[in-house]
């Protein structure tokens, strides 16, 4: 294997990232909420030796960025909890990383900490967390505890273009950064070896190895320690999707991976520079933030080409497919060449978004991965070890509270 192997994960979202994906012949729209569907997808990804699957989630009915109307009945307008999907899959997979999305704006960091830690136990060291921030008034109304102002599409476009977000957006990300900090502190709040099981003194734990985190922030405070002992990886992998400098800074403050969305035209270079600059602004030290480029893929199959498949999907959807990430439609060999080219331009890995989950995931496993292997840039078997090991992150993570 090459000294700098290419890292490859997939992002799973319902029937696929194209809004008409559910109507494709191989898609299983009635199964989208069943364990069997997700087990099949993740098993396919594991057959392709991929680093991880991430599972999208939100606390709102899925909708397109430029939704035509709120009452569409021809789209997948439902989803189930991603963390529980990951937990359901954990015992029936062995190697692949599991990175559910958990929205932190409304959910307690204490709960997130113990649920991801527990996923790390039930998956035996393969857990991650994609942090999602919710800024929509609709999601806030589901909780009724705070009011959020709707940011219009125009405001959002202006903000992304200028990099200057309204104050409340800064607050949301500051709050999310605090939540990530709390979750990480809770993961460290039990030192390794805190469970001593000392029969002679009847002490189950050494209380000197448990730590109050005593977090006091602008938005909330959390005392700790965690109820769940430190997870197998020490620190499960934290990831965030980011589209601009403010969010690159958020990722640089607390994440291990950042998922970015370079365009095909510009390539990853400009974004890599922005991420690096953001990391410098927030004085990130230690491990560098790993940059993964997101690409939506429509791959050639035996029956039809990627571009033809995309055209057919667009026709079903009644709309040209639009995406925040770059779109690739073509052969696996061409995609392999693109990934190899981009991986020399500052990205650490790729997260492919299958346009149609069932079909494109099969093509990634059966066509793209062999193509990458022929180029000598992708593993031919899984090594033993955790998700951190798979991603090339340090597997020994110092505990901030360790005294010895």
């Amino acid at each position, binding site marked *: 294997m090459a000294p700098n192997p290419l890292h490859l994960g997939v992002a799973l979202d319902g029937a696929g990232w194209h809004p008409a994906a559910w109507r494709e012949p191989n898609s299983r729209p009635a199964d989208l909420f069943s364990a069997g569907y997700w087990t099949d997808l993740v098993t396919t990804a594991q057959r392709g030796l991929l680093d991880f699957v991430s599972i999208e989630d939100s606390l709102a009915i899925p909708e397109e960025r430029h939704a035509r109307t709120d009452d569409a009945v021809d789209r997948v307008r439902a989803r189930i*909890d991603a963390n529980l999907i990951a937990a359901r899959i954990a015992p029936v997979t062995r190697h692949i990383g599991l990175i559910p999305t958990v929205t932190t704006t409304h959910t307690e960091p204490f709960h997130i900490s113990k649920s991801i830690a527990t996923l790390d136990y039930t998956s035996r060291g393969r857990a991650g967390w994609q942090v999602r921030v919710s800024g929509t008034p609709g999601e806030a109304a589901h909780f009724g505890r705070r009011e959020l102002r709707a940011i219009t599409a125009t405001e959002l476009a202006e903000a992304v273009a200028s990099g200057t977000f309204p104050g409340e957006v800064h607050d949301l990300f500051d709050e999310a950064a605090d939540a990530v900090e709390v979750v990480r502190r809770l993961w460290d709040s*039990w030192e390794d070896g805190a469970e001593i099981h000392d029969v002679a003194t009847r002490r189950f734990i050494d209380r000197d190895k448990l730590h109050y985190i005593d977090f006091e922030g602008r938005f909330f405070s959390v005392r700790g320690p965690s109820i769940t002992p430190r997870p197998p990886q020490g620190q499960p992998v934290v990831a965030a999707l980011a589209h601009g400098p403010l969010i690159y800074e958020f990722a640089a403050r607390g994440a291990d991976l950042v998922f970015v969305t370079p365009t095909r035209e510009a390539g990853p270079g400009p974004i890599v520079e922005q991420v690096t600059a953001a990391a410098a602004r927030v004085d990130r030290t230690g491990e560098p933030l790993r940059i993964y480029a997101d690409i939506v893929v429509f791959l050639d199959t035996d029956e039809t080409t990627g571009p033809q498949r995309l055209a057919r999907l667009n026709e079903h959807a009644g709309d040209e497919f639009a995406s925040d990430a770059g779109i690739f439609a073509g052969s696996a060999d061409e995609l392999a060449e693109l990934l190899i080219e981009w991986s020399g331009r500052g990205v650490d890995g790729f997260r492919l978004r299958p346009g149609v989950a069932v079909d494109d995931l099969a093509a990634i496993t059966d066509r793209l991965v062999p193509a990458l292997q022929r180029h000598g840039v992708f593993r031919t078997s899984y090594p033993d070890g955790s998700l951190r090991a798979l991603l090339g992150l340090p597997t020994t993570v110092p505990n901030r509270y360790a005294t010895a």
Partner: protein
Amino acid sequence: MSTPRKQVILGAYLGGVNHHTAWWHPAAGSQIDFSSFEHTARTAERGKFDFFFLAEGLILRERAGQIFDQDIIGRPDTFTVLASIAAVTEHLGLAGTINATFNEPYELARQLASLDHLSDGRAAWNVVTSFDAFTGQNFRRGGFLDPADRYVRAEETLNAVRALWDSWEAEDLVADKDSGRFLARPDAGAFAFHGSQFDISGRFTVPRSPQGRPVILQAGVSPQGRDFAAANADAIFSPFGKLPEAADFYRDIKARAVAAGRAAEDIKILPSASFVLGDTEAEAIEKFHAIRNEQVTGQTALILLEQIWNRDLSGYDPEGPVPDIDPDPAAPPIIQGRAFVHQDRFATVERLRQVAEAKQLTLREVVIDQFERGPLVGTPTQVAEQIDSFVQNNGSDGFILGSHLVPWGIDEFVDKVVPLLQDRGALRTEYTGTTLRDNLGLPNVRSTVAADA
């Protein structure tokens, strides 16, 4: 022909944070590793149990301001463990305690409905509320609830969660590729709930789950608690392990359920119990006493009494008499983080003194004697008989069983007692239903139309 024998409902309980689990036993396994949970669940399913039950902890216990180090204190997240157990079992119900004070209805409804989908209809929720500011320290929105609001909060949470579950009809999910229709109606999942605790509205993301409404479990001893559970729960934990107290409770709950407009059989009554088996009755009793003697060390006994006295009793001799001082209910709690509430500390103290005097017991011995309710002790035949006759005499509809030995303790029960219950016709030999509701004999609520009819 006689009517079919009343079926015994069985739940398997994996002991968490307490002094009942013999963690120091050389054969004891981990309380955290998934393999322990997996073994218990698989074994319970082999024994045709109805469900696996997990308690919840949201803060580490403290004694006098220090983290408690004498017993097991760490545990994994309930929902995550249950979803993972769904992967290694097929029929077993998956029940978890989840606190309604530190979770919002939207996320509770969503996680439970998701678990129900991912397990093909096996999710159950033990609804608890907390009014404990100590636990609230781990939650950003605090969480202190006025004790008077406890049932208001619980009732509104349940009503809000049900409103969310009911926001989807089973028929709303069409997913027809040919017509391009995914939803039957554009507003599937639309909900609004307005109460004193919650003011929420929007769209629920989870289609109606296989059980329609996951199974609801409750505990309640006070008249208010009994009424609440009888009106709302599918099953209620009984605090009584001995007839005839248990039969009184059983009759009372069923009557309250009927008064609330439900059928008596729509609510199941389940005490928790530990079990100890032996080849002879004498051996089982000896084993039981040996385990109790090991579980309740002098230090454990003092700590259990401190919860009642709410005083530092560390100066007392465990092998001496029961402390002669009065409890101090007004002081700040010496033990924090336990859902253990004494209604009347003075009465409990008086009872312990009387028992100690009558039976000539030391402080530690009186704890051993008084702090275990309704253990099932005997030969497998005797234990099968105890369980079956308790249920046939309407002491309960079944039991939630926990072993002192995690995770292997349940094996002995499944290997030795389950076949005897099956021989008596009191326990199924194969699962018959497809959902937990089916297996428990509860009404189907797959669609709100059917449920309201």
